[in-house]
């Protein structure tokens, strides 16, 4: 009795499954087309970058030959090299300092009791609602008064106050068992030792995620470096790229610059894609 009753069910489910599989091919084709469309601007950029300079190419047509001359020219130009170094300094120093200060603050907010803890934490959170652009002018005036315009500290330090990072670290450390910290203290470990030998190693996965995001945020950042980096000494790559105008420069050289500038992002992307994809869903970092 039960057997006969369940049979149509099994068949229906089976039909649904094969139906789904058959319907899958047009959907897969659509997905393939959309994916190719999405990467096509990059492909076009690379093709133009590899086209011989100085010869007017018809847009949308394949060049007769490919050359690395433009890329070589970009790599050997001092302006470009300088911007790249500045971007690296801006991004890497920010990663190190934010990871350090945010994990320390996150640890204290999660596991320490001290006066004003809740008020402080909520103030940190509330600043997330204030868009940076709304405070751009007073921040600039402040840094200007402190003599920070066109200096590295003026570029980097104001971007280190990152509430997202503190929040993420606190949430992660909240999930670590208290016994770990108590046991270390009973064994006589100093506070700094507890931080360095327990908090840091145990938060390594979330530190790595945060590090990747902080790197991308800073490497791709534009408005703050634009107003602070007023000469080539502190100008970052994104700002430098906008000073290159097609009128003064061949399109192929501009696209070669753009191509070279995106390499670090691509390295991060290809090495950590799966990781990045999972952590966005998990943490909501943007």
């Amino acid at each position: 009795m039960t057997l006969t009753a369940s049979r149509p069910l099994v068949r229906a489910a089976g039909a649904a499954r094969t139906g789904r599989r058959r319907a899958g091919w047009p959907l897969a084709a659509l997905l393939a087309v959309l994916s190719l469309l999405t990467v096509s601007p990059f492909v076009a950029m690379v093709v133009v970058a590899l086209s011989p300079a100085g010869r007017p190419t018809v847009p949308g047509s394949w060049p007769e030959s490919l050359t690395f001359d433009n890329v070589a020219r970009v790599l050997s130009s001092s302006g470009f090299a300088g911007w790249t170094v500045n971007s690296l300094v801006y991004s890497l120093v920010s990663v190190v300092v934010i990871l350090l200060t945010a994990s320390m603050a996150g640890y204290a907010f999660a596991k320490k009791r001290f006066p004003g803890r809740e008020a402080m934490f909520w103030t940190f959170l509330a600043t997330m609602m204030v868009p940076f652009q709304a405070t751009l002018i007073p921040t600039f005036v402040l840094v200007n008064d402190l003599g920070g315009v066109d200096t590295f500290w003026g570029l980097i330090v104001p971007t280190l106050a990152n509430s997202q990072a503190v929040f993420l670290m606190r949430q992660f450390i909240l999930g670590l068992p208290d016994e770990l910290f108590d046991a270390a203290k009973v064994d006589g470990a100093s506070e700094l030792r507890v931080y360095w030998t327990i908090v840091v190693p145990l938060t390594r996965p979330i530190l790595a995620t945060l590090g990747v995001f902080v790197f991308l945020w800073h490497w791709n950042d534009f408005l703050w470096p634009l107003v602070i980096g007023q000469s080539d000494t502190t100008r970052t790559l994104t700002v430098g790229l906008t000073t290159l105008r097609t009128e003064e420069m061949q399109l192929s050289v501009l696209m070669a610059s753009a191509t070279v500038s995106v390499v670090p992002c691509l390295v991060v992307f290809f090495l950590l894609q799966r990781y990045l994809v999972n952590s966005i869903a998990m943490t909501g970092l943007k």
Partner: protein
Amino acid sequence: MRQRLRDPVTGLLFVLPMLVLFLIFRIFPTLGAAGMSLTNWNIGGEWSFVGADNYARLLDDVNFWTSLRVTLVYAAVYVPLTVVVALGTALLLNQVVFLRGLFRGMLFLPYVTSFVLAGIIWRWIYEYSGLINGLLAKADLGPVPFLEQSALVLPALAVVSVWKGFGYSMLILLAGLKSIPGSYLEAATVDGASSWQRFRRITLPLLKPTLFFVLVIETISAFQTFDTIYVMTGGGPARATYTLIYGIYDHGFRSFDFGYAATWGMVLFAIVLVVSLVQRRFLDRGNT
């Protein structure tokens, strides 16, 4: 016992570096923005208190109203477009097994690059002598003045931002789709529900909180668009892309009229705050 007593100090010491950074570079400028909007602060650092003059000037400023309209129209084009593209690609990725990882990576790729790069590539794509018009010319069509015509330029810019950013919302929505129990959909299939009915009656209602989150995030980022405008149009043609943020930049760093620029910043702050509060309201209602 001694450990407990020492805790307040160590806790504070651990927070201290970040706290100092916050007080100086987040809290102080936030309060400063409000204060500055009540002054005529200029490049020389001289200022006097002018009360609500800047706000009165704002209400009389034709450019401000244009800019508010431009910002809202841009958001009205960008937000639905990006949510639809993100939802569509997320649904496809959830359905298709074939080369899923590769396709997901390709769709997500623009997200890791910068808006400046997106602006540089797409400026060339849209130009008279650019890619699209080159292709159109081969078919004896065009040219289309994407960046030169007021009616076309905002949608054209919105497309660039959608291209650059939809990967993020796509991943968030994909995670939301994956959390819908497969048994619900199977049960509906067994009951003879069509794929549209399954989407409309099961997937969409269960995806609502995620969709709402994406909607808010994308609305806020629509109001913060600056880089592509700076690179591609410079606020033009005829102020057709002169958004609020562009106004802040323009008054602050072209006219060095800091007090008035801060006033524009306060408007941006108010808008983002309202969006955030609406989000909180809805999320709270969803929880009860």
